[in-house]
């Protein structure tokens, strides 16, 4: 084995490795397969040369030279194939086929004539190819293909630059790599015998193609600077590592050969030792270079890391979100950043916070839960980079990705970072592109992923804290009320009792007083006025009593959860309402239709039976009153009016939905707004309504972690919708 073949052997090893990795891992892009073949062709060249240099017999060396040339002949066609697939130029398929034909033709010339490779000539490092006049044909073909290749790359670079800076960067980068690799063609000078030196073209090819492969494999062709830096360091470290023993071998050959029998073992040994030290040197240098090269970036990463550490300390949700958006814009030099969080009740991702620098951009206020973006994030669990979508969008089988791409581009969204909390998508961060046409590096994205998941925890923490504070306030309010209410209402009731009894006593006396005996008209009128006033006072007293009893009820309400059947509860409640209505002598002349629509006869729910009974009692009672009001106020125009109360129950996953619908008088828009405020009542007619009803109902429903909403149209009817969780609430 000749020492001059080592660099070629080593390069062959790397070439095969890259080809293998590209086959295995490069499935994501159609371009990686021709690139892998390019590597194989290059490896054939290197392996052939390595063998040729180390062979002593000329005939065998000639065979190896031909073997190497099989590889060399196919390099341009595979390279062209790669570029065409990489640039996604479908109209260039024919020119691609043509290059393959050219390669086959050259292959024929190589094997069936003696004027392609005429002979070998002896150089200091071993036999080397000497090419004949037919090789000129191949050289012509070679140049044409490469010019075509560079032309296509350059054209696409020019065309795509204004559309997508990232795309342009990628093209530029592949162009640069091919320029480097193209310098390997200087070896042809040696082949023609114009100059004679150890052919070093393989180094350029190794660097150029190596950078591209590394970028395809690790960085999705994203991080140009970082890969070039790394490859540069890698290349120089190994050039040094492999060069030292080579130089030692070359210079000290004669001296060593005299003293040691197997003299070449020494440089090999040094080479092996240095090669094993190589990775450490490489890593050390890499860290140093990168930290200098990317000081700015490191600074911003450091800031983001600090942010993610400190986030958990912020317990106010709004402050936290604002802080995050601001920080992201500042450290990453964004145009805007926005944070969307899941609102599980509305089933939407709502814009919770955003920060813009400079000109304002209208961001969407909300995304549906099953929106393309959310779906995509859920599926991929990775950041969505809009410009990356643009590569998949033309290939994508689903129109969804195309739609997603156009939506994101419309809003000038560069990247969307999902924020996961225990595998559920809590929300996402929307980031604009960075000022100065810098794209996000893979490291940026990784860090942002870490940040966003950390943020999910911080957000949950803040949400929890906020809820807890609200609960404590609510609880202390409730407790204060519960403490105060009984005593206060007792006192109040006693005062009321004194007033009402005085009034009623006086009324009784007035009744017994024989007004007719007194002929004085003025006295009679005065007595009549006084009687009316007293009756009014008496009435007011009993309204006051209603209020105290409602307050008392609210204060005493205890949540004792148990499982029971909601259907029978509502049936019983309706009966109770009807009994109390007939007891209070209200007009039941018009028969009322009452319906319960339920998926089954039993619909079990874990809740407080007493509270829900109260709630439904109030709702059905209100519905009844609304129908009475409609009969009273509007029946003139429709004598056939039939009062109807309908309760519809439905279960969706873990939520029970109960709708109480009536076709009564309904509410005006104005009244709907005020509906849940305390002491609001529409019941002008009776002294029945205290105005606490709906406010208390909402309290009861909220104690179950449920919601209540009202939909009504004046003159048509009202529907109350209650949503309750089926399962045990965490109370």
């Amino acid at each position, binding site marked *: 084995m000749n020492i001059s073949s080592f660099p070629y052997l080593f390069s062959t090893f790397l070439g095969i490795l890259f080809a293998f990795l590209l086959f295995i891992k490069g499935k994501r892009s159609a371009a990686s397969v021709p690139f892998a073949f390019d590597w194989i062709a290059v490896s054939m060249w290197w392996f052939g040369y390595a063998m040729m240099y180390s062979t002593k017999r000329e005939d065998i060396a000639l065979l190896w030279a031909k073997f190497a040339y099989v590889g060399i002949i196919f390099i341009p066609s595979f390279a062209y194939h790669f570029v065409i697939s990489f640039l996604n130029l479908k109209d260039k398929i024919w020119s691609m086929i043509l290059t393959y034909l050219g390669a086959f033709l050259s292959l024929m010339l190589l094997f069936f004539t003696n004027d392609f490779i005429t002979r070998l000539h002896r150089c200091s490092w071993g036999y080397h190819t000497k090419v004949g006049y037919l090789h000129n044909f191949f050289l012509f073909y070679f140049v044409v293909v490469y010019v075509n290749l560079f032309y296509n790359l350059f054209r696409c670079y020019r065309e795509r630059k204004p559309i997508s800076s990232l795309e342009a960067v990628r093209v530029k980068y592949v162009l640069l790599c091919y320029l480097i690799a193209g310098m390997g063609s200087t070896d042809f000078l040696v082949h023609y015998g114009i100059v004679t030196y150890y052919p070093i073209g393989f180094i350029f090819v190794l660097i150029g193609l190596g950078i591209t492969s590394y970028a395809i494999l690790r960085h999705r062709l994203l991080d140009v600077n970082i890969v070039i830096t790394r490859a540069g360091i890698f290349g120089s470290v190994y050039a040094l590592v492999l060069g030292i023993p080579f130089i030692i071998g070359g210079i000290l050959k004669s001296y060593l050969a005299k003293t040691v029998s197997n003299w070449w073992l020494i440089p090999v040994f040094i080479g092996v030792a240095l090669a094993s030290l190589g990775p450490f040197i490489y890593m050390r240098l890499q860290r140093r270079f990168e930290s200098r090269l990317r000081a700015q970036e490191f600074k911003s990463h450091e800031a983001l890391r600090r942010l993610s550490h400190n986030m958990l300390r912020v317990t106010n949700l709004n402050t936290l979100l604002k802080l995050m958006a601001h920080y992201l814009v500042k450290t990453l030099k964004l145009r805007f950043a926005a944070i969307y969080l899941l609102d599980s009740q509305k089933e939407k991702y709502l814009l919770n916070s955003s920060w813009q620098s400079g000109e304002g951009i209208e961001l969407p206020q909300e995304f549906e839960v099953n929106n393309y973006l959310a779906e995509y994030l859920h599926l991929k669990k990775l950041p969505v980079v809009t410009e990356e979508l643009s590569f998949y969008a033309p290939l994508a089988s689903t129109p969804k990705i195309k739609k997603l791409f156009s939506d994101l581009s419309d809003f000038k969204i560069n990247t969307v970072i999902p924020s996961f909390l225990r595998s559920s998508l809590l929300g996402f961060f929307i980031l604009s592109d960075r000022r100065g046409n810098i794209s996000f590096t893979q490291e940026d994205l990784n860090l942002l992923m870490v940040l966003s998941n950390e943020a999910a925890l911080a957000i949950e923490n803040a949400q929890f804290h906020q809820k807890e504070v609200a609960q404590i306030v609510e609880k202390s309010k409730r407790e204060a009320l519960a403490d105060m209410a009984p005593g206060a209402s007792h006192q109040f009731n*006693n005062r*009321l009792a004194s007033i009402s009894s005085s009034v*009623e*006593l006086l009324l009784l006396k007035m009744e017994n007083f024989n007004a007719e005996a007194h002929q004085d008209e003025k006295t009679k009128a005065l007595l009549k006025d006084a009687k009316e006033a007293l009756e009014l006072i008496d009435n007011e007293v009993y309204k006051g009593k209603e209020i105290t009893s409602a307050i008392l009820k609210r204060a005493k309400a205890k949540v004792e959860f148990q499982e029971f059947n909601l259907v029978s509860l509502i049936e019983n409640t309706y009966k109770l309402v009807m009994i109390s209505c007939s007891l209070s002598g209200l007009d039941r002349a018009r028969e009322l239709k009452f319906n319960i629509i339920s998926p089954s006869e039993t619909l079990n729910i874990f809740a407080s039976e007493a509270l829900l009974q109260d709630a439904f009692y109030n709702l059905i009672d209100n519905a009844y009153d609304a129908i009475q009001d409609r009969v009273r106020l509007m029946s003139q125009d429709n004598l056939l009016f039939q009062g109807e109360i309908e309760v519809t129950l439905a279960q969706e996953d873990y939520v029970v939905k109960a709708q109480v619908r009536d076709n009564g008088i309904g509410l005006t828009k104005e009244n709907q707004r005020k509906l849940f405020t305390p002491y609001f009542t529409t019941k002008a007619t009776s002294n029945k309504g205290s105005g606490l009803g709906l406010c208390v109902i909402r309290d009861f429903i909220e104690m179950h972690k449920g919601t209540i909403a009202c939909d009504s149209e004046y003159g048509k009817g009202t529907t109350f919708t209650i949503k309750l969780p089926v399962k045990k609430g965490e109370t």
Partner: protein
Amino acid sequence: MGIKSGRKILIIDDEEALLKNIGDYLKITGYDVFTSSNSANGLELLRNYEPELLLLDLHLKEGLTGIQVLRAAKMLKPDLKVVISSGFGEEEETKKSCFALGANAFLNKPMPLKSLSETIKNLLGVK
């Protein structure tokens, strides 16, 4: 009005104004009414005048509680009709124990005096 039935009623309530008003009202309605604003005096009156019906406030400020008075009254005069009045709103438990101790009716203050006298009329079987 005011058919003199001569039926004797005792009222125990610590709210002087209410006590007087109810007393007057029932007097006009035609009963013999005795009033007391505390439990001790009330039980004294019960022993001395043997009323047929007792209108008792459940929450007395001093002395015995309403419940204790009810128990004592029922011991003294088992056939005594008792109407309880309370300013504390509906308390199912209290109501139940009052009925268990022999109360005949339970009214929440403020109550319309008309319905009070109606209740009394029914309990005493006054025509």
